[in-house]
């Protein structure tokens, strides 16, 4: 790594190396860019659009946009945070989310980003879609009501586990996660797979471990999501 790229996020100089995305460079520099579908070490999906930033005035997804010398990135602005809240609201109304009794509550990235951005209740009308569950697998169940179509399980199963258990089917509002068999039990999915450990929400849940962590000790109970990134700020 012999070349350094310098650019600005919200007016502050950030350094990175060629090939890095804005998200990677920002994380390293301790600047939190809200995100949902992005997960370190997985191919960026660029689908949730929560990490939308403006690069020299042009909207781009920070998780897929490479850094470039001298560009000015807007991140923590009222305009972008408003749009991010709108997108988060869309997630809440397009699916059926029930934070108050969801196993993932307190550890859920959707919930945590919503809190961090100051959402108390979505402003859009609930769509109440009819979505299916799959509890056939002995160790894992899928609840599509809570799926946000981030693609993490698809990518992890294909790229890390080498199994391609998951893929998207349908399009538009009918897009959903499908498995490589009639049911999850019919696939070669294992609870130790990467794909079983990447869901940001309560859509892929491990059986028999729900509610194991008491309230107060959950991931996002005491500090907002992104705090771990901001810690690295010097």
């Amino acid at each position, binding site marked *: 790594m012999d070349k350094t790229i310098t650019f600005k996020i919200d007016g502050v100089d950030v350094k990175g190396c060629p090939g890095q995305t804005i998200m990677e460079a920002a994380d390293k520099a301790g600047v939190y860019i809200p995100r949902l579908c992005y997960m370190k070490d997985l191919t*960026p999906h*660029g*689908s*949730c*659009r*929560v990490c*939308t930033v403006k690069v020299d005035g042009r*909207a781009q*997804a920070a998780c*897929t*946009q*490479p850094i470039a010398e001298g560009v000015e990135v807007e991140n923590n602005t009222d305009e972008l945070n*408003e*749009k991010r809240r*709108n*997108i988060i609201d*869309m*997630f809440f*109304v*397009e699916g059926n989310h029930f934070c108050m009794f969801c196993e993932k509550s307190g550890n859920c990235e959707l919930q945590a980003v919503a809190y961090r951005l100051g959402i108390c209740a979505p402003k*859009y*009308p609930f*769509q109440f879609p009819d979505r299916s569950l799959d509890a056939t697998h002995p160790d894992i169940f899928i609840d599509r009501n809570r799926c*946000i*179509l981030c693609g993490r399980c698809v990518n992890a199963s294909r790229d890390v586990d080498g199994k*391609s*258990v*998951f*893929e*998207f*089917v*349908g*399009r*538009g*509002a*009918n*897009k959903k996660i*499908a*498995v*490589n*068999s*009639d049911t999850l039990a019919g696939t070669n999915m294992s609870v130790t797979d990467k794909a079983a450990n990447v869901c940001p929400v309560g859509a892929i849940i491990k059986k028999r471990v729900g509610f194991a962590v008491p309230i107060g000790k959950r991931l996002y109970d005491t500090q907002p999501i992104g705090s771990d990134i901001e810690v690295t700020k010097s």
Partner: protein
Amino acid sequence: MSEKLFQIIKKACESCGNDRARLMDIVIAVQKNCGAVTIDAMELIAKQVKVQRVDVESVVSFYSFLSKEEKGKIVIRICNDVVDLMKGADNIAKAFSETLGIKVGQTSADGTISLEYTPCIGLSDQAPAILVNEVAITNLSVDKAKSISKALLSGASPESLTKEFGDGNNSDELVRSMVKNNIVKKGSVIFVERVAEAGLKKAITLKPEDVISIIKSSKLRGRGGAGFPTGMKWEFTRAAKGNKKYVVCNADEGEPGTFKDRVLLTEKFDMLCEGMAIGGYCIGSDSGIIYLRGEYSYLKAFLENKLSKRKKASLLGKSICGKNGFNFDIRIQIGAGAYICGEETALISSCEGLRGDPKTRPPFPAQKGYLASPTTVNNVETFCSVARIIEKDAAWYSVIGTKGSTGTKILSVSGDCSKPGIYEYDFGVKVSDMLKDAGAKDTKAVLIGGPSGQLIGKKDFGRIICYDDLATGGSIVIFNSSRNILEIVKSYLEFFVEESCGYCTPCRTGNVLLLNKIEEILEGKGEPSDIKYLEDLCSTVKVTSRCGLGQTSPNPVTSSIRNFREVYEAVLKTNEDGRQPTFDIKASLEVAEALQGRKSVIY
């Protein structure tokens, strides 16, 4: 699992070299032969091309012409585009439904006929129109719909429904279609008598770099709508590293109201191939792909025959026009009903046998396109223009049109006018002049560039069509004063909701929410604050969406608010009782009243 199914699949896969990247051709062949791509079929295909079953399911479930459940041997697709609805598509649907005894969306009990709606099929100038399998039937009336239904019920083939052939190549024995060209105005670039292959023959006497520089100085910009400079695109693709490069023609015009590429494919296919070959010469590619929208399948045999004729004439294949080392061939990739595939990276995905999801950019196709090779994707009209530009020269071309928009633009004009059809204008034509030529009277609104363009009103009819003022890929839809603007907006939003690929959140859900709100307003449940709600939502969808679909899909809303605000204001009112207009207290109490067995005392 039947042996017959296995044989069909084996044949389909083997004819594509068991190549995973040819999955589209495979599933389309299976759908055609079996009326469905069932789970069993997916399993067999997956084994044959060595992918997972869910990968095949992912593709099949994406395209509206493919289905897991069995469809009738004959599928009637009624176009429900706004223009068709204006011309009575609803009554046509009713007539089919009644005569066939099935609802739209159903298949007859004996499995012979399915009835469905489909978005714009590129026949707005002869609406209402339908597709019966691959056969296009135009200018329908209720009576015709009934007689077609009866004929099909008594066993007539879709082909036998065509009684008279259209003009030009529509009557070619490989087309045999009743579709008409309706070329109303010919210009100086495309619809012109010219020496065939003059551009190609001249190009090969020059260095590829020099050909690119002619295109650059002609200032030709992409005719699909985005307007990217063609010469620059080719320069990038030429400069990109890669042994294999591709020239792709986007013949997937799906923008509601556009049909110019249909006519170009029918009448100017050689000019298109000439332009593609020049493209191949410029960027150093020996392979071209024409992505033909599934709705234009009726042209496929004709076009393939044209390609083989060109091969025989040494205009395609090895050593084209005797030029040693200049090899270029073209294959046709057929689509299967997905508007999003007109987006260049989605089109590439589809060519690769994937769902028509747009790809992450960067890298752009010029660096990493089809099968990760440098690829240039250009519109049908762009390639035709290239042939003409090289034949004449850049100086000749660049004085046509306006300073920033050189050359001519082919418009597909339809809606409320007496002369719908194809118009080739020099760039810079005034909307009012175009309306006059088209025989439009009492015009209230004009949609420039289809629903992803702008809906303009009278005050803008003095503006001109060009990239710097009113940009358009060519779709022009005219509405007279009898039309309901909000209904039009609603129909187009329904289209975008149907056609969003669903990859990114703002487009997948934002468009649904926009449609919800417009429907509410149409039901009289709107309130003044809804304008701001719509504007905020539109802005989120436009700014944060991943590709051009979501970045433009709110345009019917934003441009109608901007240009027809009075239409909204007329129906958005504050509720007298101070409640939200969306809240109907009486309706809300109905369930409780039924349970109680009595009416509310207060309400």
